[in-house]
């Protein structure tokens, strides 16, 4: 302390004198002081707001404010630990610019698309929302409106949204941002196992012998899981192996025994090489494979999820967009796909519309398909670091194969590297193949674990089914039996539900552009910053015929292009539940009140539901392209007559019909489970029923007996419970699925049962096509897929010569709405920088910390160049995060997507970087 400021002196002499002269370490003194202050605090359990790890928290409130957060010692996920974002869970609610009033574009006291935002009352907001919704609904029917929700929404919010859209408005245009994050994983789950969600759990980390990360920066994206992986590694440095298979060196490489830097998309080839080796080395668990698996494959030329027309493309991006229909096959693809004569030739991607189709093949065919993936071939193809020799890389591939073909316990982990991938479904399936061939799945220490990015992509988006093609508990909109069951659960007339798959997020945004969707309501997402090729959507939102409603808690970029902004309550300001990556559903009570007029999303949706009468939605509705048994062509039938027979009237509101049902109203508030906690949703609704509990219990009926069993609401609120992993049968959780002795749905003697019901009857064929279209059932079996290597569409060329990878960093969550309002986190990472190899920077005359212009075919942004980052990029590749609103990374990113899952590939866009 060398400053001589007056205040310093006074402070030290008065305050610190006591502690220092007595010689007590200051922390102990502070602690004693703190214990005294803590006396009035009330602690309650909760969950972290951020990633899919789902750490348990304890929240302390005092005088109506959250005064402290600590990691929950009793939570099995994190055992009291928090990562740096988790610590600030209490602060994210208290940013200075929390939205407290609805804001709408106004001119002369009325809504005007070109007006400035002005505060309005909730009444005014709902009035305009209703007016605009009905305008579009009348004109375009259920296909013209869309609700885009979130993997960060509560289970109850997802459920209300899904029911409102699907049962109320009969629209399947509801899709979460989990589409951008887990869709490929979901489709791969369903195609492989017939049911969604991982089979393993986090404790497998402590039992694994070999852990492979596939394109996942676990150290920054799932920090608490990483500390468990690291601890496991340190417990036995010699025998435990951690392998980082990645496109650039990152923080996971520090404890990894092996780091394999591969070229993007060649993960397909590497996995095929490993699977080929499994067979070559006679390491196939033939018993397991014969009893529990079949082999399958599908079409290759499925396009890249882009629009089939260049009508809306910017001039510069037309050359990339063209590839959706026709693309040149490179020599590696040609060899890998067994059509070497097509190398360099144009291929028509005719199977885009039927990309998800797949069929049985024989084991011999499977072997034949793997033939081209020799070590030499894959080494030459997949080497990702130009500075590494092919010989060295070959050695690494062999070591990787050696590690993955093992008698020990094998775990694979991945998230966005394999999901945000133009062939994401394929590569997910290849990892499952690697594990299934060896029978290493769904067992302690053994499994292919698809990690979830968001806190409730599992619990809300996937399990509740807030997707364009889903209903709750893995049911599908285009399955008649599923619709029938759902209609029974929801007390709907037959054929109320829309059987036609709706608009995934990117299609909805494209709809804003091409005029097919005119009303979009986003909740708990910031899509106009987080979706690729965002320049398109930013412009589209401002088109006069579009009306965009953004529900959020803080000002975001999406709000800037919106027409109506609704202020929402944040976590702990409402009762809620999340489900994390290991199927653990965790809950919390409301701890504090939301500021100003901010309200929970459930309240907002229920209020909106009151604005609609059944006669406005359950009459006949146009639905272009609908061709389904039991439905008239191109429209949804009028179900009002049947509704009346069921006790509804034409004037019954959607609120009364769908939510304030007789059964739900019986669930009373107050409820002793609250233990004194408030419920602002119920209070403001003023209807006296315990909304969150009633809806949870109603949703729960979908899960019970259908392999998704959730426990009763009250059980989760038990003081001793720290979430429960479903299925919960007879009060017992399930930690490993599909294997005997762990999964209650697997009967004794079965060994394994992949009981997922979806896609469990497929045609048969050879490697090139279907030969017998009769669906052959495969009950209880999983599919081992052959998928070929395919390159990504926008390869770097002479003009755009660098490959842009985007992702997250430790300090910030997604678009930074919450974390950038925490000064400590903002200070740690104030801006999104472009990580670049120093030689690449030097070639362009750029020094570390220079600002450069980064440009792609779709936009250009200024970014600070970082050549000293912990993300060590290979030459030719650059990395940027997307949390910084001033650096619109996603304006550069190509909106190519996996054609099967419709999940965009955020990891492969060609850019050029020029010195300013």
């Amino acid at each position, binding site marked *: 302390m060398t400053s001589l400021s*007056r205040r310093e002196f*006074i402070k030290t*002499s008065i305050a610190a004198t006591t502690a220092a002269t007595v010689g007590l370490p200051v922390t102990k003194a502070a602690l004693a002081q703190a214990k005294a202050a803590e006396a009035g605090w009330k602690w309650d359990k909760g969950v972290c707001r951020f990633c899919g790890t789902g750490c348990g928290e304890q929240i302390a409130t005092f005088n109506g404010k959250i005064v402290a957060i600590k990691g929950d010692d009793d939570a099995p996920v994190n055992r009291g630990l928090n990562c740096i974002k988790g610590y600030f869970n209490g602060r994210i609610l208290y940013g200075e610019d929390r939205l407290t009033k609805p804001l709408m574009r106004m001119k002369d006291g009325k809504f005007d698309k070109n007006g400035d935002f002005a505060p309005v009352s909730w009444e005014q907001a709902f009035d305009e929302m209703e007016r605009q919704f009905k305008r579009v609904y009348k004109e375009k029917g259920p296909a013209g409106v869309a609700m885009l929700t979130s993997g960060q929404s509560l289970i109850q919010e997802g459920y209300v949204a899904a029911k409102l859209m699907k049962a109320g408005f009969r629209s399947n245009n509801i899709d979460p941002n989990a589409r951008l994050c887990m869709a490929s994983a979901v489709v791969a789950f369903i195609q492989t196992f017939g049911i969604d969600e991982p089979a393993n759990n986090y404790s497998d980390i402590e039992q694994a012998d070999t852990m492979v990360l596939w394109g996942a920066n676990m150290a920054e994206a799932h920090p608490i899981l990483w500390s468990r992986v690291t601890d496991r590694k340190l417990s036995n440095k010699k025998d435990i192996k951690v392998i980082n298979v990645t496109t650039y060196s990152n923080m996971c490489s520090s404890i990894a025994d092996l780091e394999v830097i591969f070229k993007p998309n060649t993960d397909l080839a590497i996995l095929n090489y490993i699977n080929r080796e499994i067979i070559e080395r006679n390491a196939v668990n033939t018993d397991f494979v014969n009893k529990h698996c079949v082999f399958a494959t599908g079409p290759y030329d499925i396009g890249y999820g882009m629009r089939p027309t260049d009508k809306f493309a910017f001039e510069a991006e037309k050359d990339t967009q063209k590839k959706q229909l026709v693309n040149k096959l490179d020599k590696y693809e040609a060899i890998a796909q067994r059509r070497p004569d097509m190398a360099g030739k144009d291929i028509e991607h005719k199977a885009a519309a039927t990309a998800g189709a797949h069929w049985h093949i024989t084991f011999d065919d499977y072997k034949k398909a793997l033939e081209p993936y020799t070590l030499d071939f894959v080494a030459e193809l997949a080497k990702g670091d130009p500075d590494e020799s092919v010989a060295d890389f070959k050695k690494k591939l062999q070591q990787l194969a050696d590690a993955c073909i093992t008698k020990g316990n094998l775990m694979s982990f991945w998230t966005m590297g394999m999901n945000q991938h133009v062939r994401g479904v394929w590569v997910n399936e290849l990892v499952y193949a690697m594990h299934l061939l060896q029978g290493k799945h769904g067992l302690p220490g053994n499994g292919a674990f698809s990690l979830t990015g968001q806190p409730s992509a599992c619990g809300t988006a996937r399990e509740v089914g807030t997707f364009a093609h889903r209903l709750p508990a893995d049911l599908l909109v285009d399955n008649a039996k599923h619709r029938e069951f759902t209609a029974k659960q929801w007390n709907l007339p037959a054929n109320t539900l829309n059987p036609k798959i709706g608009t995934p997020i990117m299609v909805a945004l494209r709809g804003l552009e091409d005029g097919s969707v005119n009303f979009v309501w986003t909740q708990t997402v910031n899509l106009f910053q987080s979706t690729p090729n965002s320049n398109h959507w930013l412009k589209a939102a401002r088109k006069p015929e579009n009306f965009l409603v953004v529900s959020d808690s803080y000002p975001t970029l999406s709000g800037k292009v919106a027409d109506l902004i609704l202020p929402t309550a944040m976590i702990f300001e409402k009762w809620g539940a999340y489900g994390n990556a290991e199927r653990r559903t965790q809950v919390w009570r409301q701890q504090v009140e939301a500021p100003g007029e901010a309200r929970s999303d459930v309240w907002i949706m229920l209020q909106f539901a009151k604005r609609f009468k059944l006669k406005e939605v359950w009459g006949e509705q146009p639905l272009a392209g609908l061709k389904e048994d039991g439905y008239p062509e191109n429209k949804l039938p009028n179900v009002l007559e049947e509704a009346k027979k069921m006790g509804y009237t034409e004037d019954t509101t959607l609120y009364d019909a769908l939510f304030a049902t007789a059964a739900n109203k019986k669930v009373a508030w107050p409820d002793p489970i609250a233990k004194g906690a408030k419920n602002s949703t119920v209070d403001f609704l003023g209807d006296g029923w315990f909304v969150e509990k009633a809806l949870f219990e109603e949703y729960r009926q979908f899960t019970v007996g259908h392999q998704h069993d959730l426990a009763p609401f009250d059980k989760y609120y038990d003081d001793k419970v720290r979430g429960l992993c479903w299925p919960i049968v007879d009060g017992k959780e399930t930690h490993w699925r599909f294997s005997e002795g762990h999964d209650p749905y697997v009967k004794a003697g079965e060994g394994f049962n992949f009981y997922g019901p979806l896609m469990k009857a497929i045609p048969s064929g050879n490697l090139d096509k279907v030969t017998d279209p009769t669906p052959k059932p495969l009950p209880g079996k999983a599919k081992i897929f052959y998928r070929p290597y395919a390159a990504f569409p926008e390869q770097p060329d002479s003009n755009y010569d660098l490959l842009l990878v985007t992702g997250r960093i430790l300090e910030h969550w997604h678009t930074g709405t919450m974390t950038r309002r925490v000064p400590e986190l903002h200070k740690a990472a104030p801006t999104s920088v472009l990580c670049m190899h120093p030689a690449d920077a030097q070639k362009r005359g750029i020094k570390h910390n220079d600002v450069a212009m980064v440009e792609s075919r779709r936009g250009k942004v200024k970014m600070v160049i970082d050549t000293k980052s912990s993300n060590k990029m290979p030459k030719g590749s650059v990395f940027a995060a997307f949390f910084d609103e001033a650096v619109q990374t996603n304006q550069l990113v190509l909106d190519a997507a996996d054609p099967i899952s419709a999940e965009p590939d955020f990891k492969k866009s060609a850019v050029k970087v020029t010195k300013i």
Partner: protein
Amino acid sequence: MSTEPVSASTPTRPVRHFVMPKTLSGKLYYWRFVIARRFVQLSVLLLFFGTVHWGWKIAGKPLLSGNLSASKLLDVIPLADPFAVLQIVCSQHWPILEAFIGAGVVLLIYILLGGRVFCAWVCPINMVTDLANVAREKLGVRSLIVVSHKVRYWGLLLVLLLSFLLGVAAFEWVSPIGIMHRELIFGIGVGFVAVLGVFLFDLLIMARGWCGHICPLGAFWSIIGWATGQVKVAFDNKACTRCGDCVKACPEPVVMNFKNLESDGMVRAGECTNCGKCIAVCPENCLEFDLRVRLGKSA
């Protein structure tokens, strides 16, 4: 060399001037006060030095431990520099009781004796400035800068103000007095250069510069005991011929105001250090030490 106008009451007498005695005993007698003063100054330093370095004790108690800033006599009686304690208090720090008691004891002593007795009889810098003065007069160096003797009072105020603003005892941080006695007692260090600086200042720049014009400690002591100090230099007006030798000898000539001397019967001013130079030099023996109480009436 102007002499004061002869007052009407002064009898006309031939004016004599001081003449240095020729004999050694005469010289020693002339130097009697200097010798006494040096004896006291050096004894004090020796007491401190001996206690630290040679373990001097009486009845097992260290004789005089510490230095002129603060010390303890026989482990019982605390002594402290009251000016230093005052600065510490101004700096918004509160010393413990022992420091206040020590300062109180010292204040009491000097209130009784007269504040600036410290300057001539205890302060070690006095030896340096006296030497510089002798050298200056021998070499005939004239003052480069002349300031009013009142500057030191401004200095005193500045010290207290700076102590408050900076939060430290501002004079103690730089005091050559402290440096000199600390380093003599505890070990010579680089700081002794400051002592050399005072010497050169008094020699080359300002006559009797430090003690007579600058030192804020001197200003402090001038104020303490100004009205109560008992040891005063008494003045016999009848014997005085107004020869002015005392004025020339006095290191604080401002106190030698004949009008005041006549009316007060003594050197009343607080600036008088009781050095005895005037007493030694007066050819008519008009001046001698006496107690204020005895000089009562006109005091």
